[in-house]
């Protein structure tokens, strides 16, 4: 049985679903009869996803990377890893690492969006090349928002955008999961619910069919 690794943020984790086994990674793995490891985490940054794909390279046959917003990054301190982005971070930090909020506030005041966006593109390029060199099948997709940055800054980032292999990038560069699940009901915190997860799983499945990965 092929082993599937999925990494992502709350949309891949299944945030706001009554049953996490209804999240799109489970739906897709069930349909394909793959063994699933879903390392998605609410609030995850993109650095964390790259780290898992590299650290776990000997444990999966296929990886699906569902990038979060380009500005989300991972940091670490004496209490371990944490993710942050301009304007926010994950709330549990307040309880046991209150100083993390000082960094989040500094980051919110002084971040550079152009730099963060280029870092996101670099992560895509480097991870694609890493997975290819390790003979791993992979797909990438975006959870939300990044398509707007792709369109807004296409000219100034052409050098990096041209290096991205769109063959293995579902919806690139114009759409994200949020568009695929557009008409599906959403929960109070803004995540699409069961119907949206079905749509996302179907979209990825169709892309796999196009690549002749599905028998």
């Amino acid at each position, binding site marked *: 049985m092929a082993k599937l690794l999925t990494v992502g943020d*709350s949309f891949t984790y299944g*945030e706001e679903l009554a049953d996490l086994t209804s999240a799109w990674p489970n739906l897709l793995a069930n349909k394909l009869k793959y063994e699933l490891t879903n390392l998605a985490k609410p*609030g995850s940054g993109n650095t964390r996803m790259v780290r898992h794909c590299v650290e776990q390279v000997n444990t999966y046959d296929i990886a699906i990377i569902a990038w979060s917003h380009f500005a989300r990054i991972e940091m670490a301190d004496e209490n371990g890893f944490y993710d942050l982005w*301009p*304007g*926010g971070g994950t709330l*549990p930090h307040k309880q046991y690492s209150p100083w993390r909020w000082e960094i989040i506030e500094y980051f*919110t005041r002084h971040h550079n969006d152009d730099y963060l966006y280029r870092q996101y593109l670099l992560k895509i390029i480097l991870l694609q090349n890493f997975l290819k060199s390790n003979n791993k099948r992979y797909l990438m997709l975006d959870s939300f*928002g990044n398509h707007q940055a792709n369109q807004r800054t296409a000219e100034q980032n052409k050098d990096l955008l041209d290096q991205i292999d769109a063959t293995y990038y579902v919806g690139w560069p114009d759409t994200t999961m949020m568009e695929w699940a557009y008409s599906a009901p959403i929960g109070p*915190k803004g995540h699409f619910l069961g119907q949206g997860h079905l749509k996302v799983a179907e979209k990825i499945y169709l892309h796999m069919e196009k690549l002749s990965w599905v028998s």
Partner: protein
Amino acid sequence: MKWLKNIINRIKLEIAYRKKLKELRKRDPFIYK
């Protein structure tokens, strides 16, 4: 009067920060507990 100008500048910076924060929270509005 220098102290007054300093206060006004600080208030201006704080208003700009609050405005920026509002925009940033619109583009990544997901909150996790």
